[in-house]
C-alpha cells in the first residue's frame, strides 16, 4: 500500500516557499505546450483573421493587400448563410444519431462485455486503421443506386421505384454519423466504465427500478462522456466537406465545401478566411451555450 499521505503543513512560511517553487515549475512545464499552441494555433488564427480582412479586389497574380476590409464578413454571410444553416442541421442530426446509437454500444461494452471488452473496443477503433477518405468511398458502394441495399429498399417500397440513397441528404448525414461514431462511443465508454457498480446496486437496494436507477445514477455519472462525445462529434462534423462531396450533390453541400472551393479554385483567400472564422465563431458560441447549460464541472 502507498505511504504517500501528505502531512499537514507545519508553518505558513514553509507553505509559501513550496508554493513559490511550485509556481516556477508550473510555468516551466507549460513552455512546450504554450509554444506549440503559439506556433500552431495562435499564429495561424491571427494570420487567418488578417487574411479575412484583405482587400477582396486582389487576386492571385497581384496578391492581396491588408486593408481591414470588414465588409468581407457581411458578404460571406449574405452569400452563404444557407450553407451554414445546412451544416449545423446535418451536424446536429448526425450528433444526435451518434448519441442514440453510441450510448447503448458504450453501455454494453462497459457493463456487459466481460472478457470481450477489449476486443469490442478494438472493433470500435478498427475503422481508423483505414483512411477517412477510403471509408467514405466505400459508402458509395454500399449506397449505390444499383447496389443491394437500394435494391432491397425499393423492393419493400421504402424507396420509390426511381428513388436513390446515394446523393441525398440521408446519405450525407449517414456518412457523418458513421465517420464520427467512434468519437462519441469512446468518451461515453470512458465515463461509463468509471461508474462505481456499488452505486447502482445501492440504488437497487433503495427500491429504485432499473430505469430509475439508470436515470438518477448511471446517466448523470456518464454526463461528462455525453458532453465530450457530442462536442467531439459536432465540432468536426460542422466543418466536414468530404461526406457532402462524395455522398451528396450540390444541394447537400456544406460550408466546408464552399471554403474549399473558395480557397482552392477561386484563390479567393479573404472569402475562404472569413467563412472559416464565421464558422469558428458560431461553433464557439454554440459550444459555450451548450456547456453552460449542461455544465462542465465533471469535464475538467
Amino acid at each position, binding site marked *: *500500500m*502507498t505511504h504517500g*499521505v501528505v502531512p499537514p503543513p507545519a508553518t505558513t512560511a514553509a*507553505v509559501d516557499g513550496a*508554493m513559490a517553487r*511550485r*509556481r516556477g515549475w*508550473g*510555468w516551466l512545464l*507549460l513552455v512546450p505546450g*504554450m509554444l506549440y*499552441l*503559439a506556433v500552431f494555433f*495562435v*499564429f495561424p488564427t*491571427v494570420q487567418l483573421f*488578417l487574411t479575412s480582412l*484583405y482587400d477582396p479586389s*486582389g*487576386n*492571385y*497574380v*497581384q*496578391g*492581396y*493587400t*491588408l486593408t481591414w476590409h470588414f465588409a468581407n464578413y457581411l458578404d460571406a454571410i449574405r*452569400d*452563404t448563410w*444557407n*450553407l451554414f444553416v*445546412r451544416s449545423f442541421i446535418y451536424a446536429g442530426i448526425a450528433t444526435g444519431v451518434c448519441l442514440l446509437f453510441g450510448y447503448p454500444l458504450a453501455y454494453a461494452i462497459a457493463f456487459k462485455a466481460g472478457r470481450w471488452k477489449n476486443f469490442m473496443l478494438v472493433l470500435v477503433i478498427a475503422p481508423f486503421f483505414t483512411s477517412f477518405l477510403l471509408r467514405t468511398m466505400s459508402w*458509395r*458502394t454500399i449506397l*449505390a*443506386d*444499383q447496389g443491394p441495399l437500394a435494391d432491397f429498399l425499393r423492393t419493400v417500397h421504402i424507396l420509390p421505384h426511381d428513388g*436513390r440513397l*446515394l*446523393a441525398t441528404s440521408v446519405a450525407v448525414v449517414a456518412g457523418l454519423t458513421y465517420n464520427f461514431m467512434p468519437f462519441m462511443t469512446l468518451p461515453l465508454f470512458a465515463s461509463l466504465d468509471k461508474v462505481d457498480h456499488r452505486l447502482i446496486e445501492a440504488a437497487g437496494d433503495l427500491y429504485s427500478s432499473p430505469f430509475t436507477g439508470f436515470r438518477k445514477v448511471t446517466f448523470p455519472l456518464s454526463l461528462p462522456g455525453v458532453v465530450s462525445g457530442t462536442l467531439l462529434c459536432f465540432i468536426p462534423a460542422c466543418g466536414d466537406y468530404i461526406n457532402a*462531396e462524395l455522398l*451528396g*450533390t*450540390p*444541394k*447537400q*453541400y456544406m460550408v466546408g*465545401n*464552399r471554403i474549399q*472551393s*473558395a*480557397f*482552392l*479554385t*477561386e*484563390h*479567393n*483567400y479573404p*472569402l475562404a478566411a472569413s467563412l472559416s472564422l464565421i464558422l469558428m465563431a458560431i461553433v464557439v458560441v454554440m459550444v459555450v451555450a451548450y456547456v453552460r447549460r449542461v455544465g462542465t464541472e465533471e469535464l475538467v
Partner: protein
Amino acid sequence: MAAVPPPSEQSTRRILTELGAGRGLSRRSLIRGAGIGALALSSPAFLDACGTKGAKVSAGSCVSKDLSSTQKSIVFSNWIGYIDPAKGKGTSTLEKFQQQSGIKVDYRNGDVNDNEQFFAKVSPQLTDCKSTGRDVFVVTDYMAARMVNLGWIQKLDHANLPNVEANLIDSLKSPDWDPNRDYSVPWQSGMTGICYNSELTDPVTSFKDLLTRPDLKGKIELLTEMRDTMLFMLLLEGSDPNKFTDAEFSSAISSLQKYVDAGQVRRFSGNDYVDDMKSGDIVACEAWSGDVINLLGGGKFKWVPPDEGFAIWTDNMLVPNMAAHKTNVESMMNFYYDPVNAAQLAAWNYYFCPVKGAQQEIGQFDKSAVHSQFIFPSEKTLQNGHAFMTLDEKQEQSYQTQFNGVMGG
C-alpha cells in the same frame, strides 16, 4: 498494513482550489499570457509584413542546377487514363523509354485531377521559388498559359527536342500563349463531349437533352472544370464561347443554376466521373473523349460530340522552376514524339495524337485506330470544336466565383 482511503474527489478539488488561490497558475493569468502573445504577433512591425505577395516570379531568379547528368530520374505528374500501362516487361511506352534511356520515371498517375486544384497544390512552392518535387506535369492550355505568364516554367532547349521540332503537327505549333513552344510541348489533345451508357439510357446527343430530359434527372454529372462546363452553357444560350460578355456569362450561370436546382445534376466531378459511370449511379455525363475508350473500355459507353458543338483543348507538358532534371524530361519528350511511340500511346489512350507520322504507324498496335475520329479527327469533325475565350485574372476570378456558387449549392 492499514488501507489508506483514496482521496475523495472533494478533497482533491479543494487542494486544487487552494493551489490556484495561492497565485500559482490561474486560468486567468494563462489567458492573459496568451493574449499578450497574440498582441505581440499583431504588432505593427508584424502587420507590415502582411498581405500576400503576387504569384509572379522572374524566371531568371528561380533557376536550379540541372542534375540530369548524375541523377537519371524524373518525377512525372499526369492525369489518369493518359498513359498505356505495362502489360509485361518492356512493353509499355514508359517501360521502353526507361530501358532505352536508363532514366527512372516516377509516374504519378492522377496527381493532376483538376487544373485549378493542381494550381493550388503547386502555387505555394512556385510563388516562393521552391521545388514542387515534380520535374514535369501536364495541364490544359489556359492553365499552362497562366503558369508561363507567372514565370513558373523553365524554358526548354530545342536542341534536345529534334523529334518535337520535326513531328509536332502544324495546328499546335504556335498557340498564342507560347508562340514558339519555348515552354511547353503538347502531350495530347482531346474533346469534351457527352458520354452515355447505352444499356441504361437512350442516346443522349445534345447538351440540352442532358440537362432537360426527365429520365436523366439526378443521373447526370457535369465537370468541375469551369471552362468545360460553361462552354456548353454558353453554346446553349446562343453565345460564342470564344467571345462573350460578362452579361452573357451571368445569364449562362443562372440557367445552369436552374438545372442544378431542379435536381437534374447529381454532382460535379473531376476525372472521377468514370467511377460513377462504371457503378451505374449515373447514366450520362460530360466526358473527355479518350476516357470513354481507355478508362471505360468503350462497348456500352458511347461518346458523342453534342449537337451544340464541343470543347477542344490541348494538355501540355511543362517543366516547373527548380525542377532539377530538365534534360531528362526533354529526352522523354523527344521519345514521345517518335511516331512509333506516339502511335503506341494513342492506340491506348485514344486522344488526339499531336505527332505527324503516327497514323502510318498505329496499325501495328490497333487496326481500328487508324481511322478513329478520336485520334485523327478530320477537318469536318474539328469544324464543330470550340475553344474557350482567354480570360484575364479579374474575369477568371469573377467567373470562377460565380461557377463555384452554383457548384456549392
